[in-house]
């Protein structure tokens, strides 16, 4: 075998945490100058393997070879020296330093004991220009949009002469345009001979950008090959180890009268929005990131009150100046940022589930703990939360299970209107289907559901009706029957999102 056939080879890698095997005899080969997709459900072992490669963890057994040499690093800095860098999903940037200072952190130019800021700035600017970055290198990092900040991380990796760049779900917070720009950058890097390891949950991206793939399941590498030789269905089957027939098990249910109506709602990021949601209906809101979808529902939920317009619940006007008021009116919202707005991660599942629901579960001034426990257990069971009891911390659950806890919390609040903002973000394929099933069940109970999703297949598969946002305004309504009949396709909706 030609030793140059692979830039990175992992052989028989195993890693266990306190007896639980996170990786078992994993093999992975990456060809130089390719984009290599790493696929698998959450907890399949992708992150553990990447951490071993960049030196955040040390494998128990197994070997890694990089560019034909045995490769062993103790920390990410050492990995970067050897030519391996990683762009994390949650970016590691210093917000109050400039772009230049971020790129050359720990590698500053010095003249004697002093910083040579000019030299650093000049070098950084040259790099930025090379990538057609379009912003001065002295801009403070905190003023950059997320997509740009991510690009800085990539440029930083390149400046460290990285030959292998690992990208962990780089598009999870990007809109379509930014994603396309990122893909162009990836293609450019590839043309320069760089190798990219690309981790993503989005199937369509894999087929767009990747050459090879390796699939992980339960800590094993279960399949690898060329992307050109495989279909989405094959990949999904390999990832879950069973066939997922219907990813969006939408069950049609009776749609009742109007539950919530907004009239000419206007606020920061959205203008003149009017729509109705009926009992038992799933109303999908879609559009590019920043088109005003999340802002609208935040206004309805009282997080960011609107500047003008009306909100009517069962025909009566309501004002939600705070979330407390919105909840009292029977409106609940699952936020898109689960870690920030969804859960208190270090508190128990029970405390998280009952948090908005304590008022009606008191005996005098004290909490009725017995009732709380029973009800939380009941709702957790209903949402099929898998955990060792309700007293463990939310932190220890997987993303999918955490999201089910958030749903259980709002189910216990017995809402009339349930707002779901990106309910399956960062959730693996198996748990995704379960969450979709639960959403349908909630609709069947007569809850009016507003669901936001950037994933078109999800929004098309789940919604009774879809409203498309474009730059803060509504740009079209799509009915389920038109989707089912094929009159409306993903392309139609995308065109509306872009304002056509």
């Amino acid at each position, binding site marked *: 075998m030609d030793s140059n056939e692979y830039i990175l080879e992992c052989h028989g890698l195993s890693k266990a945490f306190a007896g639980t095997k996170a990786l078992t005899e994993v093999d992975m080969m990456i060809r130089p100058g390719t984009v290599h997709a790493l696929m698998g459900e959450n907890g399949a072992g992708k992150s553990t393997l990447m951490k071993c490669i960049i030196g955040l963890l040390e494998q128990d057994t197994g070997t890694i070879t990089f560019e034909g040499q045995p490769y062993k690093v103790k920390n990410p800095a050492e990995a970067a020296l050897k030519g391996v860098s990683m762009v994390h999903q949650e970016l590691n940037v210093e917000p109050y330093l400039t772009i230049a200072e971020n790129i050359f952190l720990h590698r500053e130019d010095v003249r004697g004991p002093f910083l040579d800021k000019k030299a650093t700035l000049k070098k950084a600017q040259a790099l930025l220009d090379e990538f057609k970055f379009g912003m001065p290198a002295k801009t403070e990092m905190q003023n950059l949009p997320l997509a740009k900040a991510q690009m800085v991380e990539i440029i930083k990796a390149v400046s460290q002469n990285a030959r292998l760049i690992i990208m962990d779900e780089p598009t999870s917070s990007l809109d379509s345009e930014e994603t396309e720009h990122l893909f162009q950058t990836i293609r450019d890097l590839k043309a320069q001979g760089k190798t990219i390891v690309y981790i993503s949950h989005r199937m369509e991206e894999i087929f767009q950008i990747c050459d090879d793939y390796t699939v992980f399941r339960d800590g094993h590498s279960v399949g690898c090959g060329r992307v050109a030789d495989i279909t989405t269905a094959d990949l999904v089957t390999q990832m879950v180890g069973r066939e997922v027939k219907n990813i969006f098990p939408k069950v049609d249910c009776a749609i009742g009268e109007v539950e919530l109506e907004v009239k000419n709602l206007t606020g920061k990021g959205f203008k003149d929005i009017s729509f109705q949601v009926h009992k038992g209906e799933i109303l999908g809101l879609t559009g590019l990131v920043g088109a005003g979808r999340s802002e609208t529902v935040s206004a309805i*939920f009282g*997080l960011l009150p609107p500047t003008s317009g009306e909100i009517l619940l069962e025909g009566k006007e309501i004002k939600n100046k*705070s*979330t*407390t008021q*919105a*909840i*009292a009116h029977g409106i609940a*919202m699952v*936020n898109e940022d689960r870690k*920030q*707005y*969804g*859960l*208190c*991660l*270090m*508190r128990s599942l029970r*405390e998280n589930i*009952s*948090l*908005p629901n*304590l*008022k009606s579960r*008191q005996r005098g*001034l*004290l*909490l009725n*703990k017995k009732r709380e426990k029973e009800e939380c257990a009941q709702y957790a*069971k209903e949402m*099929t939360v*898998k955990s*060792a*009891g309700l*007293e*463990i911390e939310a932190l220890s659950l997987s993303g999918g299970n955490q999201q089910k806890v958030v749903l259980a*919390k709002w189910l216990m609040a017995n809402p009339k209107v349930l707002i779901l903002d990106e309910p399956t973000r960062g959730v693996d394929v198996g748990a995704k289907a379960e969450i979709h099933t639960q959403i349908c069940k909630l609709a069947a109970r007569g809850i009016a559901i507003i669901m936001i999703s950037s994933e078109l297949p999800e929004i098309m598969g789940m919604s009774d009706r879809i409203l498309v946002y474009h730059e803060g305004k509504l740009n079209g309504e799509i009915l389920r029957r038109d989707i089912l009949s094929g009159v409306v396709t993903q392309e139609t909706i995308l065109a509306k999102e872009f304002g056509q």
Partner: protein
Amino acid sequence: MNSLSKKGNRLGMDQTDLSLLMRRYGIGLVLVAMCIFLMIATPNFTKASNLLSILNSVAVNGCIAFGMCVVITGGGIDLSVGSMLALGSVMIGKMLDATGSNLIACIVCIAVCTFFGLINGLLLAKFELFPFVVTLATQLSIRGIGYLISGGYSQGLTNVSFTNIGIGKTLGIPNAVFFLTAILIITYILMHRTKFGRYDYAVGGNKAAATASGVPVFWTIAGSYVFSGFCTGVAAVLMSARINAAQPNIGIGYETDAIAACVIGGTSFAGGISTTPGCLIGILMIGVIYNGMNLLGVNSYWQTILKGLLILLALLLDKFMNKKH
């Protein structure tokens, strides 16, 4: 797939319960170890009178620490407690002079401290400032008010029945121990049995998530400081009675011991994690450290050094145990 077998589930619960218990109260084992060491080293340690004297000696710091625990749990910190203690003491002197009534003096003292707790709380809840800096500022101002009202002079309390609150005994147990127990019980019920306590944990753990869950964040934060003020007020009554004086210069550095008790007891400085029994363990530990070193004849300079080292040790131990699980 959805539900584990019943037995497996129960077994799993037991394991997590045990590890949770270790994580929360593991520091208690250190306290037990210290007590055993002192039992062997100094036979006087286990005498009932000595044990009661430990409880008596921690009463003032204990009351403040429980209030502090509630504040830190909510994501804050209260550096103004020492000054409040002094102001409370000054108020007692003035009130005893003016009315001669113990009850009125105590009520006014506690009310004034609670009021300044409310000021702290409203400032922090309304303007989202850093608690460290805000309470540092109010610490100075409250101390100043104490000096202003007292004219800077210490005033002896001649009222024997008042002094009795601090140094008297009921059924052979120092009165101060009853006060500490009362604050302990109130804190426990507040934190573990009421809506407020749950909200406090949620706000300290993740303010954004608490807001998005409809928790009244404003009143929760304000409430935690009000409670700290209340507890400090009670401590001020005990302290004044004990030193038999109304003094504007007492309580300097008392926030340190209170914070130390919380931290030793497993209260997370980041907020959201604490237990009332843990805090009690922290309070007792500080008392045992002082008492034990006195019995062993360690000089007071060394006592301060060792106390600092023991706090560090407790933190490292806690970190180590948390990592293991």
